């Protein structure tokens, strides 16, 4: 049953036949996905299609019910995997920012580098301030998250995920909770990450962003990857009727 066909030999992340069910409700069927270093993979599809669950499975927040998830050729879906070691190499940003409200921005960013990766405070803070500066947050470093706008908070969350230099960054609809005029800030930040070669897997509703930035787009429907390919192919010549339907609906809604 599980597709054992090897994808790109250099795949950073390799998913084969992944299945996830909650009781009798199967939310992911037989997912195959390859992510090479430097790829930007956009997961699109309506709410409930399984995008978020897939990301949570990749990050081992959810236990998979079958199939294989490999990071750098190592099976991380094995129960004996050291989850913390995997997460040390994989960053994740959530829709609701999830910044720690009791810590200042710079402390939010330096927490993992200092406590997980053993970087000294001085070095961690220097890197944090450099990243914050890059994302236009230099003057917010010592503020607490609740003093920031949603867009600023989400950029801090991005910086927090980036600070430990992850090999792979997972972004779960990170602009879905933002005001429309703040979405641009965050997408701009993601775009610059993509351009400098950060490996990204992101679930998104921003179709024009996916079209511009993705190297690979996956359309999820009912827990399956119904269609995947380069953005120009998916957006201009979708093979599946469901994909066409979905794109027509979201594109006219946005117009």
């Amino acid at each position: 049953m599980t597709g054992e066909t090897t994808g790109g030999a250099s795949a950073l992340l390799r998913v084969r036949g992944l299945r996830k069910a909650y009781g009798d409700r199967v939310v992911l069927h037989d997912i195959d996905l390859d992510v090479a270093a430097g790829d930007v993979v956009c997961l699109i599809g309506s709410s409930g299609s399984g995008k978020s669950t897939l990301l949570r499975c990749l990050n081992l927040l959810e236990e998979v019910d079958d199939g294989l998830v490999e990071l750098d050729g190592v099976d991380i879906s094995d129960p004996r995997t050291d989850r913390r070691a995997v997460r040390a190499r994989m960053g994740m940003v959530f829709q609701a920012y999830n910044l720690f409200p009791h810590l200042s921005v710079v402390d939010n960013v330096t927490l993992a580098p200092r406590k997980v990766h053993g970087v000294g405070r001085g070095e961690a803070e220097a890197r944090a301030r450099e990243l914050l500066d890059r994302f236009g947050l230099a003057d917010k470093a010592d503020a607490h998250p609740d003093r920031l706008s949603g867009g600023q908070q989400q950029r801090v969350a991005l910086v927090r995920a980036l600070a430990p230099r992850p090999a792979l960054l997972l972004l779960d609809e990170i602009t879905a909770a933002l005001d429309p005029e703040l979405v641009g800030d965050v997408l701009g930040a993601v775009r610059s990450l993509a351009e400098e070669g950060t490996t990204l897997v992101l679930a998104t509703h921003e179709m024009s962003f996916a079209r511009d930035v993705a190297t690979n787009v996956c359309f999820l429907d009912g827990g399956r990857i119904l269609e995947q390919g380069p953005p120009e192919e998916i957006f201009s010549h979708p093979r599946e009727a469901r994909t066409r339907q979905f794109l027509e609906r979201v594109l006219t809604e946005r117009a």
Partner: protein
Amino acid sequence: MSPTASLTPGGAAGGDAGGLPEAWQPSERELERRRVRRAMHRRSLAVATLTTVVVFGVLGAGLVSSPGWETFQEYFFDPDHARDSFPAIWAGFWLNVKMFLIAEPLILVLGLALALARQARAAWLTPLRLLAVLYTDLFRGIPTILLVVLLAFGVPALQLQGVTNDRFFWALVALVLSYGAYVAEVFRAGIESVHPSQLASAETLGLTRAQTMRHVVVPQAVRRVVPPLLNDFVSLQKDTALVSTVGIFDAVFAARDYGSYNFNDTPLVVVALFFVAITIPLARLTDHLQKRVAERERAGAR
């Protein structure tokens, strides 16, 4: 948990959605993974058992091998004395339970009233609010045992007309006054934890402040503070023992009475067991409710 029970469509990724339905069978890898998970589970079970046995074994051995263990045992764990003192303690303990059952509803009413008085915002209610603040500051500050002594001995000494001199009554009043102040603070914390947006929504619907409290804020607050309230219940149940200080024949007094005649304190241990027997179920209930609240608040925020 029943992987073979669900009948779900299978098929290669990228295939058409309406593929032939086909029963999903766990792969070899998944079966192996389940075996590993079971083995890991067994191992953690074994570790838990072993550490528990060792820790409790060492504690028990340490206690039994202490130099005074023999005398200690005679003095506190004498089965004959336990049996002899049992009826008097049983009778006394019923008084503790009765006290708890009468005091608790009064405390809840008083506590909620105080908390609401403190939340009053109308200008003319200012004296009420100040009184509530003063009350909690005062009665939370005085040790309950002093309050019991002061009221149970002090009020009768005033020789007031038409006021009972019953020490049981005044000891009960002391417990209600003291715990009322604590419970008021618990309710206040609950009321203040209700998000301001709830007040705003109630206001925009045109509800008065009293209506807002009654129909929106208090129901949410009460639900949230049930666990800490139960914690205070447990504490009150134990503190009914304080009335023994003013010569009321409760379980503790009965035990001390027996002990001083027979030069043996086994009855104190018996009383302790009585209290534990009643507070443990209360504590488990508290844990259970706390877990339910936590689950409810986490729901949807995965």
